[in-house]
């Protein structure tokens, strides 16, 4: 699939939840080092 025109600002502003249900802003993952983000279909 072709890469869409990704807005990094919008992506980085999104939050995800950790195992404790706490929010983490995505941008923090690539703030200090290159990040590899793997999106999986489901946990199972």
């Amino acid at each position, binding site marked *: 699939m072709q*890469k869409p025109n990704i807005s990094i600002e919008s992506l980085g502003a999104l939050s995800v939840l*950790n195992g404790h249900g706490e929010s983490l802003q995505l*941008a923090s993952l690539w703030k200090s080092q*290159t*990040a590899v*983000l793997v*999106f999986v*279909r489901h*946990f*199972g």
Partner: protein
Amino acid sequence: MAELAEQKHRFKEKNTQLAVIGSGDPAYFKEFREKTGYDGLLFSDPSLAAFSLLGFARGITGMMSIRSVFNAVSAFRQGHRQGSVQGSTLQLGGAIVINVSGAVRYYFASAKAGDHPTVDELIRALDRSLRRTE
């Protein structure tokens, strides 16, 4: 996921941050870790906002064949019967590499269920990205 779990150290060796993001309830993280052996960063995007923004397909429009549709429906039904699948079974995944400047150096969107980049492919993408920033 098993390959990623076994070779997680390769990302650390490259001084990169590896994170796995799903869409299910974080309450199932423990079960996921036990099943896959993955003990790294793990998050959930229950709203699917990041999946959507990245263009990771959802529903039958993202399925490339009748067989994939059949498999997805079958998995969906099985997941609900067994209660073991957390997250959307019709949601497809993908992978991205982003450097500290916020530049996306690698993009992969699954075209069908089970379609994912190998660890070797991700490492090659990292090497290319790191070379560009040297």
